[in-house]
């Protein structure tokens, strides 16, 4: 039955409320971006005006590139998050395959250990992890790569359990006949995993990878323990640092926020279907 909807008063109220909430999520971003193009003393006069004519300036962005190593921060953040996503997908995928298909003594114990591992908050492990990595010579060293590793390893562990739970569920739902066929053709378990399971699990891998990547990219807590040298700052560390140092230069603040937010918005617009799915799946993570 298709009913032609007329715009009733009730429906108008509904739309007005929805649009108001949409404005609260969209307008603050626009406001920050437009103010990033104004001189810092002009922002305070009228922050709602568009940056046209005399108001327009690129000074804030010039200063942002001078005072912060924004490319260095992007490099660190992208490296960390990409490695985290890759390692989580690779290792959790293998583990999930074993959990989904093999029955062995103690497998239910391992299952509960995995579910238990989801519950650890980062607060409860970070000090001891730092101690351990400091002893290994990973944390707080002059080497860029080793410092990056000191963040990547705990972040991989933090996402591992959630990823295994999601992937195990997915692999259990795959038809076992394909694996049987591959087995008949003479594939061993590893060939079955890489040639049959992995291609079939791609959608679930994408979900897990996106969540791990974004979680790691946006994390401030773990990174602030391990990345304390300014030349190794990730994006969140750089933001936190600049707000502590130059928090009163509002033009600069707006420019830095714009430089960080805009790329994320563009990526979100392109991949939003997958990103929403990934973030929702990640809700089970502790």
């Amino acid at each position, binding site marked *: 039955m298709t009913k032609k*909807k007329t715009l009733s008063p009730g*429906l108008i109220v*509904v*739309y007005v*409320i*929805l649009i108001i909430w*949409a404005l609260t*999520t969209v307008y*603050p971003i626009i406001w*920050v971006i437009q103010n990033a193009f104004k001189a810092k003393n002009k922002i*305070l*006069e009228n*922050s*709602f005006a568009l940056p046209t004519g005399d108001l327009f300036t690129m000074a804030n962005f010039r200063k942002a590139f001078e005072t912060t190593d924004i490319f260095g921060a992007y490099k660190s953040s992208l490296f960390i998050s990409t490695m985290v996503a890759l390692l989580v997908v690779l*290792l959790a995928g*293998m*583990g999930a*395959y*074993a959990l989904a298909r*093999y029955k*062995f003594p103690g497998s239910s114990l*391992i299952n509960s*250990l*995995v579910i238990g591992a989801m519950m*650890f908050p980062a*607060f*409860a*492990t*970070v000090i*001891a992890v730092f*101690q*351990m990595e*400091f002893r290994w010579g990973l944390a*707080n060293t002059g080497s860029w790569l080793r410092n990056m590793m000191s963040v990547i*390893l705990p972040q991989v*562990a*933090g996402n591992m359990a959630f990823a295994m739970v999601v992937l195990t569920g997915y692999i259990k739902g795959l038809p076992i006949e394909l694996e*049987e066929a591959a*087995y008949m053709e003479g594939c061993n378990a*590893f060939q*079955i995993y890489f040639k049959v399971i992995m291609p079939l699990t791609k959608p679930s891998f994408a979900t897990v990878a996106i969540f791990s990547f974004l979680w790691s990219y946006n*994390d*401030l*807590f773990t990174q602030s*323990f391990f990345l304390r040298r300014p030349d190794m700052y990730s*994006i*969140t560390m750089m*933001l936190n640092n600049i*707000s502590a140092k130059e*928090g009163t230069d*509002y033009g600069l603040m707006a420019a*830095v*926020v714009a430089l*960080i*937010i805009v790329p*994320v918005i563009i990526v*979100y*617009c392109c991949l939003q279907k997958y990103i929403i799915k990934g*973030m*929702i799946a990640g809700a089970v993570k502790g």
Partner: protein
Amino acid sequence: MGANIYRNKKPALVFLLPAFLFMVVFLYYPFFKNILNSFMHLKQLGASATEFNTPWYTNYEEMLHDPNVWTSVKNTIIMMLVTLIGQVGIAIILALMVDNISRGKQFFRTVFFFPIVISATALGLMFNLIFLRDKGMVNQILEILGKQNLTDWKAEGIALVTMMAPVMWQYVGFYFVILVTGLNNISEELYEAARIDGATALQRVRYISVPLLHNVICTCSVLAVTGALKVFDLPWVMFPKGMPLKSTFLTGTYMYYQTMETKNVDYGAALAVLIVVLGVILAKVVNAIFREKDY
């Protein structure tokens, strides 16, 4: 037949080992080590503990007398109620509304969700500008509406509101998407039948949507409450070191403050234990309140 492939168990060990090692080395071991640390004396972050505190429960005794601990626990519980009522409540209203419109569903979904994708650190800086005393966005709007004096949004008393509003705002879209998905799973025939029986739109919401959404709402509530314990980035960026006057500490930010700012590392470890205990208790309470029902 299926059993044949997986009769040889050796590959399972190889598959499981790396993931399992990660969890044992970086989660289980540090977790128990942290409990031990909380009884020991740690000179600095990274130093190994050499001796026990005298008496060994010093840190936990100190916690009882530390007013900041009580402030942070109180604030965390307020934060939980705010996220529960604010996030899930607003999300329910928005989801029910979007479910009843025909145009723009996808648009609202995209727009409502996207604050979650942006790092809380960047949002914290943004809200610092929005709540600026001297002509931040909020004060300018209030001025246009005819308010005479400027409000200092970071002053004592109102600081908690300024801190919690953005946290609440950021995650509304998350629960909104979960709830909309739940609503989509409700069979259209039920609404059809109700319409034929003469139910108004509001009655359909009250007697079909809300009851059938019960389990989804429970899931959202549990997630919101447990999520509130993990909040760190946004409050720390907006109100570093619990300013003003250490009144805005949450359990997470206070643990960080003790560990990183005052270098009282073993006390930080003890606070982390407190966070875990608090989390376990609250999870039990919430699960008891929001038990899922079978229909």
